[in-house]
């Protein structure tokens, strides 16, 4: 099968083109560095199927970053039939720097001049034909996002791949051209080297890999160096080569591009928006407001606070007595997320009733297994699917529009103070979706300490799987205690996660991982409207992942939980009121005391072990936390009608009733689950990405952080604990001061004696 490689600068649209060509749904983000490894797919619209390889974005073929090494190794070793060089037409000169290097390899290539629609929209023009004549490589104007010019690109690439191509260089007029030629002749003479031109230029640049591979030719370069002295760059050949490339690009292509429209100050539309959104002082408040708006639209039961402000009268939209009862709030309007949640909750409730009615001739245990176990587990998390989708729809819009890249830039100022660069924040943003790809994305961080620190804090950025925990507990608190708003609690918990991440990084950077953070240089992409197709692909990915998990891991876990919560150690079926004698209760009660400082330990009534068990099942998949509460809620709640699969919030409310757990303990429970050891898949990824020693410490780190954070929340939220803790701190401080004063004169005396 023919193999075409997609190579280009970061954020030039390679993955968008890859998805367009192969019909894949690989993650596309409007920031540089989303793709950290190569991906493969098949293009079937040509005369023969073509394997398309999406390579990570790079600025050069010098082996400084993992992405550059992966791309360089692939083009040189795997010898693709054609390299499609994606060039961002809005940043022509910078993108062509990489083009001038790929040209030097003996591989057929074609230039895809991407984002041509953006160029035209800004009022600029690019003369593709002139460009093709000057560079000597076919150029096709495309828009990967809008699917413009794709068929023509592939048609021409197919033609190009049939012809052999020798590498050419733009350094013919460089001061180093003679040396390059000499090295090339020497390499060609050995007969063992493919791509002699590329290797010769890299050796002249004193590339580490070339120096290692061709030690015998280093002297040739060194001898020339002694006789060479550039006015500006001295004998730094890498700088001389880079300068020559840019001079060539500037001389030949500045006439190809007419600059985009800008105002008197030279600002583009994106620049003007950035003046506000990335402002030194307003940037962070604007970021926090945008994030709050997202949570408000997803979780609020009082949209725009119309009810609180008295704009909506009581029962105005209650729809009481109709089949839509509960869809809209009473005296307030629910957010779209809550409306859909209520709707799905009613649907799952109705479905459960139908199934239970159909099983009325079966034994009580069979009905309980289906209703409480299977349906209870799945339905308790399934009802959160709309809110998860709405939240990720907003995140996708922010990401695709280019705002998330700005968020990294804004937060770089904070993170840098604590020892992490904004570059590390990009994988963390991905952590809001799922920790697994986020941890893999840390490969773009060159510094090992920074990478380890980032992997450790990624789980603190609540992923989609943790959302049901946040929403169900927040909803339970609002319903049972009548305090706060679900959106405010959920948003605060997200902010808590970010705060814990910052504090953890601060701690690591001052103790085990000392060192400066690497500089963060990122080109901010131009703002553009999110594409409907892209957004839907993101959401479809989420739905697929969620449904797959619901009917595999969560279903299996719910079944196991039901069995071990309904059978005793003697394997006897227990009536529902005797659940405290079950296998699960035995295990839970054994571990329960450990969680006493977090508020969901021994201080709870007899069913308190449920929270401990739920937290443990969350180690398999975080959705299991609420699924477990859903499976157990109907059974443990005295006076509650069994055989009724409950929605997540109802389950939590019933358990709050049964256990008499307090608000600080519930918040501690959320915080513990947010910051503790993540799911199996994330743990396996961390294990693969870290050394064994660092991985073991990482597990301990997660446990310690979650325990400390949970304890602090519970203790500060419970006044009697606070008084006790403050008393202990005061006591320790006084003892410390006394000891210090006694120690000081002794040291002074010793110094005097010396």
């Amino acid at each position, binding site marked *: 099968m023919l193999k075409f490689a997609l190579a280009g600068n970061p954020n030039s649209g390679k993955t968008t083109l890859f998805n367009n060509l192969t019909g894949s749904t690989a993650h596309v983000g409007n920031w540089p560095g989303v793709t950290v490894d190569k*991906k493969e797919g098949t293009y079937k619209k040509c005369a023969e199927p073509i394997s398309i390889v999406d390579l990570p974005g790079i600025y050069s073929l010098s*082996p400084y970053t993992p992405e550059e090494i992966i791309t360089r190794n692939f083009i040189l070793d795997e010898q693709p039939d054609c390299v499609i060089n994606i060039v961002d037409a809005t940043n022509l000169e910078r993108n062509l720097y990489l083009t001038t290097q790929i040209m030097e390899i003996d591989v057929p290539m074609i230039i895809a001049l991407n984002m041509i629609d953006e160029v035209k929209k800004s009022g600029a023009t690019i003369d593709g034909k002139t460009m093709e004549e000057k560079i000597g490589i076919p150029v096709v104007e495309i828009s990967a996002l809008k699917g413009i010019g794709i068929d023509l690109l592939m048609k021409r690439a197919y033609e190009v791949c049939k012809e052999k191509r020798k590498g050419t260089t733009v350094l013919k007029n460089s001061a180093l051209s003679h040396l390059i030629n000499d090295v090339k002749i020497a390499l060609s003479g050995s007969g063992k080297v493919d791509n002699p031109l590329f290797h010769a230029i890299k050796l002249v640049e004193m590339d580490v890999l070339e120096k290692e591979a061709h030690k015998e030719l280093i002297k040739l370069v060194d001898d020339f160096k002694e006789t060479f002295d550039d006015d500006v760059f001295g004998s730094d050949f890498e700088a001389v080569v880079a300068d020559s490339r840019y001079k060539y690009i500037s001389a030949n292509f500045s006439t190809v591009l007419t600059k985009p429209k800008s105002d008197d100050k030279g600002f583009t539309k994106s620049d003007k928006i950035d003046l506000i959104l990335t402002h030194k002082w307003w940037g962070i408040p604007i970021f926090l407001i945008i994030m709050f708006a997202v949570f408000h639209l997803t979780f609020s039961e009082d949209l725009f606070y119309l009810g609180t402000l008295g704009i909506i009268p009581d029962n105005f939209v209650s729809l009481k007595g109709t089949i839509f009862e509960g869809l809209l709030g009473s005296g307030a309007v629910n957010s779209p997320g809550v409306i859909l949640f209520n709707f799905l909750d009613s649907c799952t409730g109705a479905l459960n009733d139908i199934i239970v009615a159909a099983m009325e001739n*079966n034994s009580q245990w069979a009905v309980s297994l289906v209703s409480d176990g299977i349906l209870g587990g799945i339905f308790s998390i399934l009802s959160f699917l709309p809110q998860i989708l709405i939240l990720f729809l907003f995140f996708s819009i922010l990401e695709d529009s280019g705002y998330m890249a700005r968020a990294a830039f804004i937060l770089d100022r904070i993170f840098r103070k604590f020892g992490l660069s904004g570059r590390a924040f990009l994988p963390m943003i991905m952590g809001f979706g799922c920790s697994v790809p986020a941890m893999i994305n840390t*490969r773009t961080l060159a510094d090992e300490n920074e990478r380890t620190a980032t992997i450790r804090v990624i789980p603190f950025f609540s992923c989609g799987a943790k959302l049901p925990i946040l929403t169900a507990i927040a909803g339970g608190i609002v319903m049972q205690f009548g305090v706060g708003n679900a959106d405010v609690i959920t948003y605060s918990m997200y902010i808590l996660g970010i705060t814990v991440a910052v504090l953890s990084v601060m701690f690591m950077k001052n103790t085990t991982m000392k060192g400066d953070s690497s500089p963060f240089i990122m080109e901010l992409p131009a703002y553009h409207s999110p594409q409907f197709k892209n957004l839907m692909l993101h959401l479809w990915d989420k739905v697929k992942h969620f449904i797959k998990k619901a009917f595999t891991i969560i*279903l*299996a876990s719910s079944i196991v939980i039901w069995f071990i919560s309904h059978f005793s150690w003697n394997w006897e079926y227990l009536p529902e009121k005797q659940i405290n004698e079950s296998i699960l209760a035995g295990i839970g009660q054994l571990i329960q005391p450990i969680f006493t400082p977090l508020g969901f330990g021994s201080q709870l009534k007899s069913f308190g072990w449920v929270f401990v068990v739920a937290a443990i099942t969350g180690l398999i998949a975080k959705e299991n936390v609420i699924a477990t509460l859903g499976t157990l809620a109907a059974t443990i709640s005295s006076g509650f009608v069994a055989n009724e699969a409950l929605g997540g919030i109802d389950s939590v409310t019933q358990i709050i009733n049964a256990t008499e757990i307090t608000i600080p303990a519930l918040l501690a429970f959320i915080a513990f689950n947010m910051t503790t050891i993540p799911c199996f898949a994330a743990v396996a990824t961390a294990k693969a990405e870290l050394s064994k020693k660092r991985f073991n410490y990482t597990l301990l780190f997660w446990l310690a952080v979650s325990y400390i954070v949970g304890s602090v929340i519970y203790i500060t939220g419970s006044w009697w604990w606070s008084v006790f803790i403050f008393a202990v701190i005061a006591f320790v401080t006084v003892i410390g001061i006394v000891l210090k004063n006694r120690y000081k004169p002794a040291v002074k005396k010793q110094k005097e004696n010396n």
Partner: protein
Amino acid sequence: MNIIEILLIIACALIVIGTVIGAVIRKKKGRGGCCGADCKSCTYCPKNNDKKL
């Protein structure tokens, strides 16, 4: 136990066993910790330690 109850027990057993076996197979294939693409030239793949730079 009637036929529905027996089938229910068998279905539950199959779901649990199938999920566990599926997870073990995925782990053996190396999925989860890597991108799942071709491992041959991936410098992060543990199988290609010699290629690591």
